[in-house]
């Protein structure tokens, strides 16, 4: 910020049509991005007695409920894997995704104050919102490893690369869909009302409480269009050697994620110019 600071020249003109995402600018604002994530994480459990313990309790309680209803009552077949660990291994990536998606969707409206008062690349808001649940995921995975020890499961070598990859994949999907929905939510608050239902339906359309093998072969293709199918199946395969190794279905799922990510970014860029006027 002294004499050696480079001459910055900036041109402001009316935007036209579709425009590409300015990655250089996103990178330049990485500190603000970091601060937004850090704020979300540190504020998350302030003034709650149990604090970060909630990151453990949420999936744990859900798992117990699922085990009773889907495991004991409905007796959903899990190919011999104990239902608690089966559902918990699916719940972890799912909860990360669904929390990220909900946070991202509501993020633009929640940060209305920033949007109308300060300039920054708008895309960092939904992106930052999707990262705080990552901390919950890490905390909750400690229970997963305890359960694996208890049930005598040894993670496969594939989990070394596949687990981070699946988390990244879930994140990419959450950012993609989150960009779409958060931009729409600026204009139509209905989106915010709708998101809990979207998440609920999406969960039952993903192999969280049941294995993907339960879906009739004729519908597997359709099923693969859901990116979370790939994420959760990949997670289970790496950890519990359950289901099929990554194949064509994974590839299709991943492509859908990429498409959502790219179109979400473009759509967001297209809409962002009037955010400050409308939000």
């Amino acid at each position, binding site marked *: 910020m002294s004499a050696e*600071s480079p001459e910055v020249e900036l*041109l402001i003109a*009316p935007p036209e049509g579709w425009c590409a995402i300015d990655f250089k600018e996103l990178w330049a604002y990485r500190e603000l991005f970091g601060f937004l994530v850090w*704020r979300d994480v540190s504020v998350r459990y302030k003034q709650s007695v149990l604090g970060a313990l909630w990151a453990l309790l949420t999936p744990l309680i859900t798992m117990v409920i699922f085990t009773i209803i889907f495991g004991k009552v409905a007796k959903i077949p899990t190919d011999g894997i104990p239902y608690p660990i089966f559902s918990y291994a699916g719940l972890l990536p799912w909860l990360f995704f669904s929390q990220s998606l909900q946070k991202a969707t509501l993020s633009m409206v929640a940060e209305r104050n920033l949007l109308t008062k300060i300039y920054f690349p708008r895309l960092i808001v939904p992106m930052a919102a999707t990262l705080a649940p990552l901390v919950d995921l890490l905390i909750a995975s400690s229970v997963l490893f305890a359960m694996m020890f208890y049930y005598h499961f040894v993670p496969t070598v594939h989990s070394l690369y596949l687990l981070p990859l699946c988390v990244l994949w879930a994140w990419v999907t959450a950012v993609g869909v989150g960009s779409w929905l958060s931009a729409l939510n600026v204009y139509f608050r209905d989106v915010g009302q709708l998101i809990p239902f979207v998440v609920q339906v999406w969960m039952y359309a993903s192999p969280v409480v049941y294995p993907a093998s339960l879906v009739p072969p004729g519908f597997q293709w359709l099923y693969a269009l859901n990116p979370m199918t790939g994420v959760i199946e990949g997670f289970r395969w790496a950890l519990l050697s359950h289901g099929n190794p990554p194949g064509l279905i994974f590839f299709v799922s991943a492509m859908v994620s990429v498409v959502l990510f790219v179109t979400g970014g473009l759509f967001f860029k297209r809409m962002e110019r009037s955010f400050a*006027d409308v939000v």
Partner: protein
Amino acid sequence: MIQVEGIGKRYQLGQSIRHDTLRDAIMHCARIKKAGAKAAESRDEEHFWALRDVSFGVGEGEVVGIIGRNGAGKSTLLKVLSRITPPTEGRIRLRGRVASLLEVGTGFHPELSGRENIYMNGAILGMTRQEIRSRFDEIVSFAEVEKFLDTPVKRYSSGMYVRLAFAVAAHLEPEILLVDEVLAVGDSVFQKKCLGKIAEVATGGRTVLFVSHNMAAVQNLTSRSILLADGQLIADEETGRVVASYLASGNQRAAAEDLSTRDARFRIESICFNEAAQEPGFDKPMRFDLSLSLEHRAETISIGLGIYNSLGVRLLTSRSVVDGLESGNSKISIRIPEHHLPPGDYSLALGIFRGIETIYFAENVLNFSLSDVGVSDPLLQPYLVKQRDQIGAFIPGIWEKI
């Protein structure tokens, strides 16, 4: 360096365009189809230019004020300049690192501590972590919150809160600074400190664009100003003259000021300064005549008057209780016996209250002048030549040997 060329910003008017829910949008689409060609015709009327064809340049190190009435486009101009909202037409070239300060405390989070909020807010305003760290102590001592650094700001008093917020903003060091009316926060001692800091920034070789309603501050801080009215640039010259023409335009506007009250059964027909009743000389009683039309009788109301000098500083407040008003038209006069105001141009704010309910309140309902005819007080005389706008109430002192 700022070069603004033909900037315009168009907003769409009314709820018919701004759909907050999906249903509205669907309804609107249906309506458009029905209306067909008519809708296309009326399209232009649904638009509103908040800024139109504004061009100016600001050189390096120049400090320029932007003044204008509410809705003149000042804030829109700053928002366009700071890239919060894009222009509809025209272009702007900026050279240098830009920081905009449209509000103090943007991004403050109530749950975070003072220390954490300094970092957070600094990052939002565009400071790097290193810059914040190097100025951290300065910010803390400027805000006078050393003891509460690790307390969540939600426990701060409102004074501490704004002090901290201003302190972070004040330690920004961009090459171009865009400031909206965020000045003068906190108690009067801190306000002075704020204005001092702004003056320091203004004289420190930085390019500053400064939006304010406070004419005294604009005159103190800037040498050149831009006057906006209805989105257009009216004047761009030396601050003193711009302020003068701004105030002159106020005289024309005031007559058309809205007198409609919040209670339809209570109407204000007119308010005027009774010039005929004004005796010549200093500190002679002032009289305002108010004409009301009531649907119900015998209400006790209180009437508040506020008098502002031509720089927009409130000098005097007067309140009177009026009772026994009959239904129908009533004319009342309000006399302010002693006011100590010197000759000059003033504007009046009027408030009418029933109990704690506000029936009417507006600033600048009326402009009036106290003439200097017959003012011969030798003590007052020296001020009348140059500073009559600045002295406020004038009271000769009484001295004796003790």
